[in-house]
């Protein structure tokens, strides 16, 4: 475990900002049972965020980071988009490289860390938008599934290219009018979770991030299964309140609405993944 990299030299402590000292003293390290219940007490790994006020992506970030079972040895690879502006605030080793190459970069990192640290568990996670995952990066996303890379891929589906000002994406629903689809989208929403199953993912979930506890459960399952079996995929609805014209306190209701329809909870577990999940439950880790 690499908690040491958060330890501050005693002689320098007086010059270090409190929020950095808190990372050493009040964040939950070395405890796989950490979770969203720690949020009110523990120091979060996300310092602040630069998303729109009330953006559900900010909730998703907080729940996911609170649920990582092994943050001291977790690397997150990101892509360009609204999410990437958050990454400088995350207290982990993270990467932003190009728009759409996130699963390729993560592959290289995961394989190299396995080679460099054969006796350590290093979790590699990809976290990117729908444009990055399903459109421009689809090739890299699916190919990493085909190759059975031991990576967890998380897609923040806001059904739009938000960061560039609201253009239609592959996950936009048919008929919705966005920029670049001025007559409404002409074709159906891409069922990315289904593609993930067909491409070899062992644990796949589709849902919104309306329930923190549920996010914790699926994130932990996805990471444990990726560690031992192969690729896992989480498809989260994180609506872009700005582009669909909602107020900053409307995000949660929007997600709860969609929990009843196109983001109704869906989970796929492969037989090998079942075994891992059962084992982790026995160990009290799920």
């Amino acid at each position, binding site marked *: 475990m690499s908690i040491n990299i958060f330890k501050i030299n005693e002689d320098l402590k007086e010059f270090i900002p409190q929020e950095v000292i808190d990372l050493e003293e009040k964040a939950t390290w070395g405890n796989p049972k950490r979770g969203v219940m720690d949020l009110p007490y523990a120091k979060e790994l996300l310092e602040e965020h630069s998303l729109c006020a009330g953006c559900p992506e900010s909730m998703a970030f907080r729940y996911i980071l609170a649920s990582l079972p092994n943050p001291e040895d977790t690397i997150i690879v990101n892509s360009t988009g609204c999410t*990437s502006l958050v990454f400088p605030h995350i207290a982990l080793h993270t990467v932003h490289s190009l728009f759409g190459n996130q699963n390729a970069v993560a592959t290289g990192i995961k394989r190299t860390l396995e080679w460099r640290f054969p006796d350590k568990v290093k979790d590699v996670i990809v976290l990117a938008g729908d444009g990055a995952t399903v459109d421009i990066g689809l090739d890299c996303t699916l190919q990493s599934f085909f190759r059975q890379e031991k990576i967890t891929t998380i897609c923040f589906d806001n059904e739009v290219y938000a960061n560039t000002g609201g253009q239609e994406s592959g996950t936009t629903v048919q008929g919705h009018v966005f920029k670049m689809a001025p007559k409404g989208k002409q074709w159906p929403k891409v069922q990315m979770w289904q593609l993930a199953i067909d491409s070899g993912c062992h644990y796949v979930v589709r849902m919104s991030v309306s329930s923190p506890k549920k996010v914790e459960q699926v994130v932990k399952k996805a990471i444990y299964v990726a560690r031992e079996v192969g690729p896992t995929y989480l498809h989260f609805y994180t609506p872009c309140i700005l582009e669909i014209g909602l107020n900053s306190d409307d995000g949660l209701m929007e997600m709860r609405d969609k929990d009843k329809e196109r983001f109704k909870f869906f989970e796929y577990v492969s037989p090998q993944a079942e075994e891992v999940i059962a084992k982790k439950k026995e160990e009290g880790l799920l």
Partner: protein
Amino acid sequence: MQKLGEELRNRAGQKIVDPEYLLFEAPREKVFMTGSEVVKEAVKRASVDASVSYPITPQSEAAHLIGELWVEGYVGVYFRGESEFGVMSEIAGCSMAGARTITTTSGPGTLRAMENFPMWAGSRLPIQLVLMARGINSPLSIQPDDLEVSFLLDTGCMVWYAENAQELFDMILAGFVVAEQPDVHVPVINVINGFFISHTRESVMLPPDDIALPPYNPYKAPMPPIDMEMPPGRFLRDPFVMKSNYISYATHTSWQFEVRAAIERARPYIKKYLGSLIEEFGDPEADIVLVSTGTGAAQSKEAVRLLEDEGVKARVVKLRTIRPFPINELRQAVKNAKVIFVPEFNVVGWLEREIRRYLYKHSDAEIIGGPRVAGGMTMPPEIIVKDVLNYLGKEVKHVY
């Protein structure tokens, strides 16, 4: 690294030696090999951690052979990626995670991968790319042509150019050593002319294969590796500064300058490990100078010999590096030149452009861009001879 008695050994069990010993002092034996085979021999002695491959002629064989080294335990990570775009991102991931990395590509592969090269440089990844130059589409061609190099000149990567298999071998080893210097730490692209070097056999002097370069130490890099083993715990690679404010503009700009400055700082290391950024050939008094790279330089040397038979004194200045560009070396080498020819393997004359840029107001010589061949043509020395004789107003009789 494991300690065995007095000796340090790498993970393949080879004895670790100083780069200087490996490059200059170790006894060498003569072998007869293709450029592709030489890539394998260099990688075998380079303590390489990771390589990612994708098929494209003429670089495929070199990539296959690196795969054999992986099977034999000399390379830690090896696989075929989905496309050159994917491969260059995968190798970037390997490098970010602390691996010494090498990959290979050619022509359309280079262009498919293009977005990655400035990202490598900006993320300060000392990745080595062996580029076996071939024509780019359209029309489709698999033949030698080095137009693709012109696209790479401003990516922030070092660009070196090897004349033959021997130089390729030495440049691959030196490439790792120079690119990984903490005050350099940018990618290095080692170019050869595809087929002419990759697919032809020549004699090459190789050191023994039970010695190797010291392994890469990612903890000496100017930026921490992405492995959660080194402070700071909060670290984003690359430095994401995309905010719309003046500080972010200034940060981006200074970062771009710094990547170029890093290439400049490579100069003394290149001199140390390659000998010089240029090589001069022929009568130093000659005022007819052929400035070229790679196979163009090899053919120019042959042309100098033929010109001697015609009673014409000429010489060659071969550029070993294009980035950093050997500015002072070139200016010094063409000080007394009356005319400079720039033989090239492409239609645009990117090397001529470079030479004109750096000689502007530093040389009175007439600069003639050519001769040029492309699309798979060879460059017989006779066509260089012919251009020189024509320029001198001499009868062209021995050239057919």
